[in-house]
């Protein structure tokens, strides 16, 4: 199992990684871990609030990836986004199951420090791309996405809190996501 050590994987390399995973290749799990464990753990930490819960989530994500590898469809997105979607789904399910109405701590995107620590010298190309994509949003759009994605607030709750019509909140949420997607697609084009 060999992939380039840095930079996003090519679609062909992602396919090879998934194939190796399906073949029961333990090295594929290690490769997957090396590339994606950190953002998954980070998301878990932000959503679940403790290192212990984030570690459990990280383990659950890799087990789920192992089990569901046959369902990965490259025509529907990158491996990185597939894994992050699994992570977010599992975290939200866990929050709903365990804490009922309790919300994860809100993390506003524009509060995220831009400086990466000295021990964090590994390539963070996905993060750079994500930040660039978010720069295309207004502060209001960033805040809206953060409340929904990191805070778990429904459109209805946001509408009630802000005194904004529900339809408007839904439209703004969709518009903000489309802007992020387009900005990221532009980045992916040669």
């Amino acid at each position, binding site marked *: 199992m060999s992939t380039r050590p840095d930079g996003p994987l090519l679609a062909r390399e992602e396919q090879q990684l998934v*194939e*190796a995973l*399906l*073949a*029961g*290749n*333990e090295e594929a*799990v290690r490769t997957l*871990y090396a590339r994606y464990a*950190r*953002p998954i*753990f*980070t998301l878990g*930490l932000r959503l679940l609030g403790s290192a212990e819960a*984030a*570690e459990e989530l*990280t*383990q659950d994500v*890799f*087990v*789920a990836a*192992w*089990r*569901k590898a*046959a*369902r990965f*469809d490259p025509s529907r*997105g990158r491996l*990185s*986004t597939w894994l*992050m*979607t699994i992570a*977010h*789904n599992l975290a939200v399910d866990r929050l709903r199951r365990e804490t009922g109405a309790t919300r994860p701590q809100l993390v506003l*995107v524009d509060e*995220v420090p831009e400086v*990466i620590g000295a*021990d*964090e010298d590994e390539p*963070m190309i*996905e*993060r750079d791309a994500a*930040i660039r*994509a*978010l720069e295309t949003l207004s502060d209001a759009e960033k805040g809206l996405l953060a409340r*929904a*994605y990191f805070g*778990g*607030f*429904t*459109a209805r709750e946001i509408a009630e809190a802000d005194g904004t019509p529900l*339809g408007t909140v*839904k439209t703004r*949420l*969709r518009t903000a*996501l*489309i802007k*992020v*997607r387009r900005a*990221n697609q532009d980045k992916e084009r040669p």
Partner: protein
Amino acid sequence: MTCLEVRELLAELAVDTITTEDRKEVERHLQWCAGCRKEASDLGQAAAILAYSLTPASVPQGLNERVVDRVRRVAGGSGTPRRARTAAAAIVAAIVAVASLGWGAVMAGRADRFADRAEQAERDRARALERFQVVLSQVIPGEEISSNEGARLGQLAPAAGGTGGAAVLQLVSPTMLDFVIVIANGLSDDPDRLPYRVQLSNDAGQVLRAGRIAELDSDGGAEVFRQFQTQPLTGYSTVTLLDAAGEVVLTGTVDQTP
């Protein structure tokens, strides 16, 4: 739900704030509506990008090994002959590639899809075999399904009044260990029905256990893989998925003609 109603909910689906009831309705719609599925995919990818904007946290030491250990336990440990695994890997890889060519829609379908579109499924299966051959040739140059690899495809339809669906592939070969894969979807998560069992049977009524499904994902889906160390699968063309009470949930046969 109409496309208009579904699209109003796709952003909330992408950020996981959609209600359980709406999620079920939307996902049902997405199974047959390619346009809405494309938009759902785009919005879902956008949402996943958000996760990468966070300042990376330090991962606990040793987590790597703990993850590998956990996966190893789930996978049931090692010990399978490498040769057999490699062959199976090629076939599974081919399935994944076939899925990316379009057969995935069949495998991901739910009960109504299987039941309502039986005729179409037959045509799809023939086309899937053709595609399967194309992909298999890329994975193992010169390999012919008809000569060496007994790749048999099949679909399981729900029993009367039931839900769910499944796709099956058997690999039967004189030189490699035989192998079966069942990918199920849309099964009930009623705790009384779990665990599900998958079994293969032949015309003489002999039954082989192919696997057990103890938990389902959010789509009511699960996969069962099993290699048969000594038992050839020739003739075991009937595949049945039963619930904990022994009630037949899904049943069907794999195509016996290579």
